[in-house]
């Protein structure tokens, strides 16, 4: 096999592997979208409220929001 052919097969194989990995990554992101989750540091907010001299009202849904 010529040198050009070997280099070509190397590039092509690498490209196909990368395409496959990107495809799998995209499928994973589609099935587990990161963007929908909220990242709220509830304890930080409570501490900020306490620092302001107020009492944080413990609404029922802190636990759901934390998840």
């Amino acid at each position: 096999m010529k040198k050009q052919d070997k280099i070509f097969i190397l590039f092509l194989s690498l490209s196909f592997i990368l395409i496959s990995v990107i495809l799998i990554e995209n499928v994973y992101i589609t099935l587990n979208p990161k963007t929908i989750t909220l990242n709220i540091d509830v304890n930080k907010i409570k501490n900020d409220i306490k620092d302001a001299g107020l009492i944080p009202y413990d609404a029922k849904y802190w636990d759901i929001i934390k998840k």
Partner: protein
Amino acid sequence: MKKYKTLSIIFIIIFLSGFFWNLLKPCESLDLKKEIEACKIVLPEAENFSKKTGNPLHYKAFKFNNKTQKEDLIGLAFLTTDISPEISGYAGPIKVMVGIDIKGTINKIHIISHTETPSYMTTLNKFTAQFKSLDIKSKFKVGKNIDAISRATITSEAITRAVEKSFKSISKNILHLKITDTLDQKTSLDPNQISLPIILFIIASLAAILVNRGLRWIALAAGFIYFGLVKNTMLSIIHIANIGLLKIPKFNNAPILYILLILTGITCLLFGRIYCGNICPFGGLQEIIYKIFNIFRSKKFILTKKIDQHSKYLKYIIVFLTLIVSFILGNSNPAAIEPFLTFFKTNTSKLGFTFLTVVLIASSFYFRFWCVYLCPIGALTGLLSKISLFKIKLNDKCKGCKTCKEICPTNAIHLDKNQRPIIESSECIICNKCIKKCSEKALYWGKNKNEKTR
């Protein structure tokens, strides 16, 4: 080649199967749990929510008042897709829950679901936070008081318009607040998005027919600047998947996409791969890289015929794979594999940049490496080119010198038993080098008359 017929049939079967599967599958039942959770997110102070009722549809949010021992109405929550379903994002509807207080001020908005490109949505929380405290007198203008999500203008405008329209509708009809602005805002159509692509395709087609290489480079440069840098819009397998999934944006939201699809189809059916060879920004970039590196190279990298021919089938495998995965998931996001998305939109993962680097390096050795061996759009336009009205043809002046075969950069020219060149139209990018270099003027543009051409 008979194999191209088989490939075309496979593509049609996959596309139609996916199309009808997504058309006929039962609609997703209302995910009430997700909606209630979203209500709690947009109105966290509420202790109780009513059922979704009213016109327009909304949830009422209540909080127990210790003094009166009754539940007070503290706000309303509503879905934009219930009130303004006609407004959708780039790739389909975006379900947004909006929470407002009884004075008509937005407390929070929360995106429940969308089908936009995930890599653009990483700053979604920052975008949605801008809607807090907007009221009926506020402006809802992307680019003015609302910063758009980077590279996702259509998505940003869709969310903004949907929130504004549904918010004002609820404020007017349920809270009975005075709304002076009109609720119906139509996006104005930019005529340049229609005229400029048409002009570009005309130049590219003329470059092909008149065998003018200068015009070809003008078209490639213009394509790189306009479609690549200015509009960041190139034909992608994502668009083909979205057509099959019936998730194409409305014409007013993305006229350039429609024009690109239509003109590519028309020029393919008339002349062949005009878009690939004379307009595609990424194709042009690869050609420039190859030409620059060729200056420093004494010998061209010539592949063995068998390896070259068999490798060209890889792009068809990529088409079929990406379409099948997209249709099964009912979402075109998995099909975002093309490196030009990374190059022109610069908003992607490290893996995407690695892949782009590999392709560009390979392009320095092998002419249009991505286009010839991997591009799914190249595969599809190639299949369509098999039935083009006009093709490069051979007359009797051919002396069998094989210059055209040696000069063809994509190895689209083979020799038959009589040593006469046959041009593989599915691989030909219409650079017209063969016509230019032929000393006998044996190659010419002519009408395809159902001859035994390949």
